[in-house]
């Protein structure tokens, strides 16, 4: 589904190579996790895949079911079914959460040549999905992420994911800033979306999120490359011994 080949990326503004040849394939129905120390390039990978400005691709490719992602605008990637759950969801004063989500859902439908979702259907669906994530009606009415707690922001990301029904979901440090209960709620939301047609790439520092979202494959990223891949046991190894041992081993 998501195929990344020898992806090389530098910062646009300065001469700093962040990704130095990333190879990664996420199959439909699978959950891949990327772990790695700070500064290894994990978040950059998520931003480059979703189309954020400020990065320059110097080599390699990234495709979603064969479509070249790197040439597309962020909204076109989203319409193809790519979703990034942000590490730091952005607050947008003045734009209502409901307006935002309905515009997003219908923009994607339009881009795919599908009919717009009626207000009634939209309301029905968002209420049901919000309820599962314990997001109350008041939160839906508020401006996007404004005044939300850390946990509320992350739940709001998962709600967007549930409404947009992407094929390929990237979760960037979704566990950061969450207490155990909030993390479980978010993980339950993600698990509810797992199915045969959908791929996940879960970026995290810590193993604890992976207790709740069980990965099929775990990759370790360091200095802009994936240096080791393995099964879920690799995450436990990181938890027990830190990154140093693994990095020493591959060095």
């Amino acid at each position, binding site marked *: 589904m998501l195929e990344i080949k020898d992806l090389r990326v530098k910062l646009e503004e300065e001469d700093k190579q962040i990704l130095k040849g990333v190879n990664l394939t996420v199959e439909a129905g699978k959950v891949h996790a990327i772990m790695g120390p700070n500064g290894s390039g994990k978040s950059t990978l998520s931003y480059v895949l979703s189309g954020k400005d400020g990065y320059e691709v110097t080599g390699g490719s990234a495709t979603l079911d064969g479509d070249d992602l790197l040439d597309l605008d962020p909204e076109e990637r989203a319409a193809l079914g790519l*979703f990034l759950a942000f590490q730091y969801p952005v607050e947008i004063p003045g734009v209502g959460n409901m307006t935002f989500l309905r515009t997003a859902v219908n923009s994607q439908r339009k881009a795919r040549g599908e009919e717009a979702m009626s207000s009634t259907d939209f309301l029905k669906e968002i209420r049901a999905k919000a309820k599962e994530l314990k997001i109350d009606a008041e939160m839906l009415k508020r401006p996007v992420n404004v005044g939300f707690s850390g946990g509320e922001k992350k739940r709001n990301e998962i709600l967007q994911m549930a409404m947009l029904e992407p094929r390929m979901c990237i979760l960037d440090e979704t566990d950061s800033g969450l207490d155990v209960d909030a993390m479980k709620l978010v993980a339950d939301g993600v698990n509810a979306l797992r199915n045969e047609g959908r791929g996940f790439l879960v970026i995290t520092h810590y193993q604890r999120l992976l207790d709740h979202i069980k990965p099929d494959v775990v990759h370790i990223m360091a200095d802009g490359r994936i240096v080791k891949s393995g099964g879920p046991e690799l995450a436990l190894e990181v938890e027990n011994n830190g990154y140093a041992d693994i990095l020493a081993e591959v060095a």
Partner: protein
Amino acid sequence: MNALLKSKQEAAATRLDSASLPAAAGWSKAAREDALARVRSTGLPSRRDEYWKYTRPDALTQADATEADVFKSDEPLVFDSFDRLKVVFVDGVFSAELSDDLALEGIEIARLAEAADISWASELYGTLEAKGQSPVERPLAALNTALATDGVLIRCTKTPSKPVSLIYRRDSTTADAMLHHVVKVEAGASLTLLENGPGAARLNKCLEALVADGAEFHHVRAQGRDHARSAATHMFVELGRESVFKSFTLTVNGKLTRNECVIEFTGDDAIAHVAGAALGDGDFVHDDTVFVTHDAVNCESRQVFKKVLRNGATGVFQGKILVQPGAQKTDGYQKSQSLLLDGDSQFLAKPELEIYADDVACSHGSTSGAIDEDALFYLRARGIPEGIATDLMTLAFLAEAVEEVEDDALKGEITGRLEGWLLRHSRA
């Protein structure tokens, strides 16, 4: 005599040469002659005046109106769906045919050009305008008092069942209109006044309003969508004890607009909010000039002006809060912000506070910035195309000004117009 004043007086003399007091001036003759003398003495604004530093007054002071195409649209006009008493002017001339019957319980409306000597109006006409000439001269308002050919006198004694709606239609490409309205809201009454339409190729409009003790005056206006028109408008509002004045102005397009608002608190515990949302694209200069004088205790004033500018449009804000000695517990606030959608547009702001009392809270904030790139990316990453995402953020930026419209239905109407403008302009 200095050279600047001399040239301004000469400009006034030239302008007045071709003008004469309206024949039917009648009861307003004394006020008009007084205003005429004031214009002759101050002269007309010049681009070298400090108060006109950012906006060139030439188009407003020259002898004739510059030709301006009439904007045509099949869309319904703003406020069309509202139940209201319509008072229609075409190119600055009252149209009885297009207007509703002017009878409405709680208010008396008379046409300025035809009114007999009404004592309340003759006491007010030109009075607030004259008072508003100090400490800053506003010669275009004095010119208006002297020469206005039409307008309405509205006295509200009891809250009417619906708003009064002044509609300014345009037919002629060269009409030069001068309208003067006088409003008096008597103690305890509440009046909502709507205004919409471009008025004329060139419009000079003056509104004097006295809001008595405990009265409320709500004012919502939309200045029409014509591109080439120019307008100079003045509002002079005096507020009595525990009274409320709330004004909101929407401006889209227009080559030149100067909206001056002069507010004076004369009674304690009163509230005045004046707000504006302006959207300019290309050849557009929009100037909000506000002067609030606190001369009473425990009054609240709030100015919220937002401008969205692109393709070389210019926005200007000059706002002043003057707190007189003894006006303790004053709560004065002014905010002027612009959203610059490209590097060609500019926003010029001059916020001023002058305070002679020691127990007051006054603040101002003026910002100018581009669209928040992080927020834009967030919206686009959810599949919202860049144009729509920009629109959403533009509406969000303007929302704080639109929020000043108290009535929800009117607020919705204004938001709808803004959305319409954005649709036409950004996704073309």
